[in-house]
């Protein structure tokens, strides 16, 4: 039996079967306008909390939580979102990102944030040998996983005109005793400033 096509999102599901193109566009716009609210709803469900649980913790009525969850992000008060997030044990930290930011700058912002958090962990590791061992293990795991994620993204790149990849990611012979670092092999890639030159 032929394998059925799989879809990664509801928008993808609807792309070619929505009653018309306008419906699909309308749906995407609707979903995009409720991203934040949906995120909080997902966290609530993952913690097994009901609307009443959240309402009781905040000190409001269940219908107010229901109204918030049915609203669009733009129509919700920031204070309500903060209170909701607080019940879920989350800090609500909206930090505006300039719309003109280039994709490569966005990647850099996240990369620098990762470095900052890892530096904090390295600092924490100085307090105790056991913690240091745990942090070292996490650093290795983190390094490999980030490398694999980057490799996955790299696979989505188009090929060079000669049909070869721009570069290959490869992890080989990873052992506990002898941790071999992943390697990056440039095939026909441009210089590392290429993304900037391409205006990304």
């Amino acid at each position: 039996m032929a394998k059925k096509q799989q879809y990664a999102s509801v928008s993808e599901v609807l792309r070619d079967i929505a009653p018309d193109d306008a419906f699909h566009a309308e749906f995407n716009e609707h979903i995009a306008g409720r991203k934040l609210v949906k995120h909080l709803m997902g966290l609530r469900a993952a913690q097994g909390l009901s609307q009443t649980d959240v309402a009781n913790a905040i000190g409001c009525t269940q219908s107010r939580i229901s109204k918030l969850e049915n609203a669009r992000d733009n129509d919700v008060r920031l204070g309500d979102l903060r209170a909701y997030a607080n019940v879920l044990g989350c800090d609500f930290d909206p930090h505006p990102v300039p719309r003109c930011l280039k994709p490569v700058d966005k990647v850099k912002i996240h990369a620098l944030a990762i470095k900052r958090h890892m530096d904090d962990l390295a600092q924490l590791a100085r307090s105790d040998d056991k913690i240091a061992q745990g942090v070292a293990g996490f650093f290795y795991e983190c390094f490999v996983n980030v490398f694999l994620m980057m490799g996955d993204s790299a696979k989505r790149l188009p090929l060079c005109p000669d049909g070869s990849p721009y570069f290959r990611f490869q992890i080989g012979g990873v052992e506990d005793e002898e941790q071999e670092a992943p390697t990056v092999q440039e095939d026909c890639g441009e210089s590392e400033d290429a993304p900037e030159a391409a205006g990304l």
Partner: protein
Amino acid sequence: MWKFERDADYEKRVKRWPKKHRRELKAMHDNLDTFVGALNRGAMPAHEHFGFIHDEPKGIKAIDQKGAGAGVKQCRLYIFPDTTTKIVHLITIGDKSSQKADIQYACQFVDSLITREGDTNG
């Protein structure tokens, strides 16, 4: 991450969904998006806390049109979140008038899916 698969009956019915019930169709899929978003954040299909989800036999979930506003038709989108494969099967879609037959169809779908998965796993 959970993925989706469409059954032929779902595809057929969505394509022919009446224009005058667009709000319902949009709301059901919006709710589906919220439900799967929760699954992706670690929620268990059996422990959902959303008012738009109704439990049906064999682990089938019926998602209604809540959020579409007033004066809308009662509709249901029947899905089966398969925890083994992490695939949400979109089985069929209908209104109150077809509810009984829709649930029956969804149950048959799940039975045949489980048999197929059993065959595949030996």
